[in-house]
């Protein structure tokens, strides 16, 4: 398949790549940390002896945020990430690609159903720790994790922002980053999404966060936004 690739080059974000196909389409991709294995049916691309995985912006909100102009990606090589709402491991697998061997991804997920799939993904990735636990009760996974440079929260809960703040206060290093995926429809279906984004961002500002950017993820995810904030606590 590599014949259809024109170039792969690193973007201005560390370890995030852009792949240009012969026909001119451009897609994000990451270096595959588990070569030979595809996680959710994404394309594997060989280029100059390295294997890359296409990063589908419709499947992963972080990729969507990058496509929609995320100014700065706090997920870099060697960062430690606490990931709440790891689900079946789509986005965590790409984060695991980016942070590489010396970074760590602690993937917390509450639904036993999808943890089964998460475990399969983590099996090939020694830097991805699957933890079946409820993000509302950090004390249950406290003994298994360490303080994180980045807290990534993607949980569809009405009180997701409060859960994120609580976890940040327990696990986020000061000056660490929060990436919060807000699903407007699971907070309040009756309100206008942009109002909800504003209200949640304000909540963060009041709780020692410096909100850097709020990105509407449309068309990759309707009624979703990604918030990038810095923790001053």
């Amino acid at each position, binding site marked *: 398949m590599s014949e259809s690739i024109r170039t792969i080059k690193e973007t201005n974000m560390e370890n995030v790549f852009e792949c240009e196909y012969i026909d001119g389409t451009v897609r994000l991709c990451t270096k595959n940390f588990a070569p030979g294995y595809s996680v959710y049916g994404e394309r594997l691309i060989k280029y100059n002896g390295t294997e890359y995985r296409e990063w589908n912006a419709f499947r992963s909100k972080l990729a969507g945020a990058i496509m929609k102009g995320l100014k700065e990606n706090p997920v870099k090589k060697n960062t430690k990430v606490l990931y709440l709402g790891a689900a079946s491991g789509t986005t965590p697998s790409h984060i695991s690609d980016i942070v590489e061997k010396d970074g760590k991804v602690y993937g917390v997920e509450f639904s036993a*159903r999808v943890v*089964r799939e998460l475990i399969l993904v983590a099996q090939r990735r020694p830097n991805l*720790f*699957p*933890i*079946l636990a409820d993000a509302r009760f950090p*004390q249950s996974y*406290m*003994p298994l994790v360490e303080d994180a440079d980045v807290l990534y929260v993607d949980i569809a809960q009405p009180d997701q922002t409060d859960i994120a703040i609580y976890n940040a206060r327990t696990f986020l290093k000061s000056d660490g980053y929060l990436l919060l995926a807000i699903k407007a429809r699971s907070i309040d279906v009756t309100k206008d999404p942009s109002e909800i984004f504003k209200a949640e961002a304000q909540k963060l500002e009041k709780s020692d966060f410096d909100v850097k950017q709020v990105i509407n993820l449309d068309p990759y995810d309707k009624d979703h936004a990604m918030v990038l904030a810095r923790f001053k606590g």
Partner: protein
Amino acid sequence: MMKLYLVEHAIGSFGFDENGKLIDYVLNPKDIGRVVELLLQHENGEPFPSALELINKVKPEEIVIENEAEIQKLQVKATVKPHHEGAKIFRQSLAKFALESKFASTEDELYTYLYQLAFEYTRRKLRSAAQKRDLLAIQAVRAMDDIDKSINLFSERLREWYSLHFPELDKLLEDHETYAKIVSTFGYRDSITLEGLKSINIDEHTAKRIVDAASKSIGADISEDDINSIQQLSNTILSLFTIRNNLSDYIESVMKEVAPNVTSLVGSNLGARLLSLAGSLEELSKMPASTIQVLGAEKALFRALRSGSRPPKHGIIFQFPAIHSAPRWQRGKIARALAAKLAIAARVDNYSGRYIGDQLAEQLNKRIEEIKTKYEQPPPRKPAQSEKLGERRSRPEKRKSKERYKSKKNNRNEKRRR
């Protein structure tokens, strides 16, 4: 006055002073199984033994902890503050503390350990989550059996009842659901039309015969009240069919989650029935293949054990298409192969949750093919067999049991006489 900031981590318990200086520590055992148990107890507010030991060693006047649930379990005055000074320092440089306390000699070793620990912890929790849900699947499949019984019962009644009005329909339709649908949709036999029948998916040929029969029916005329009552029954039957279909979908999804390997071998329905007969996934996983092979044929099995006659070749797994569609002399062999694979599948489902269903199914199919080619012809009849069989049955024992039965009967009769 000394305050101890306590940090409990999988590697051990560490105590800091208010300036964030490490005072002392006690390591946890480096045994993944044991630590997973400690972690699970920890969630319910049970402090690590290492923490208690640390407190004993340091004897602080007050401690600061992160987990509120632990407060009552500690003998010392305690306050709660998540991410206190000690916790921050510890968890920000976890690797440093692990190396300094000699828990691990390299960073790699530490993270490999924590990785395995997270895995085992998650697997254990997954298992207990699945174990609860297997009971749900079992109840669902039992409910489905009950519903099937009710459907049959009600359908028989409906056929008898409606036959007073339209007796010919009974013979024309085998399927209970279609029968009930016709009664519900049309009511009087005269309202049945060809178009209407086609719109509820009855094939042209049958539809014509029904309409024809309706026009010449010898059934009695009945009142609107009568029809309404009959329709109430047929509506009930139809709603039972709806419930049955929903249950079947539900069982499928739960079984895929709870016992993916068993399900991939025999499908969700038969899989759930096996769980139901065994009692739970755990019970099934503890059974030898030979028991799984005859689950559901207990009556035949114990009769065979008592009398020494031939044991059954298959229990509920007879429902497996490859068994009941195979010629008689191959069935036992296929049943044995299937039961062996099922035993493996149940154990993997219960103890690891790994998915190996595709491999198992493939191996099983290979074996079935082998049986089909190797034993294509029925075995030759052995005339000596009947005699042999007679020998196997130990006569005295048989007589004994007969006598026992007789004496029981006599006892009973005696009692009655008294």
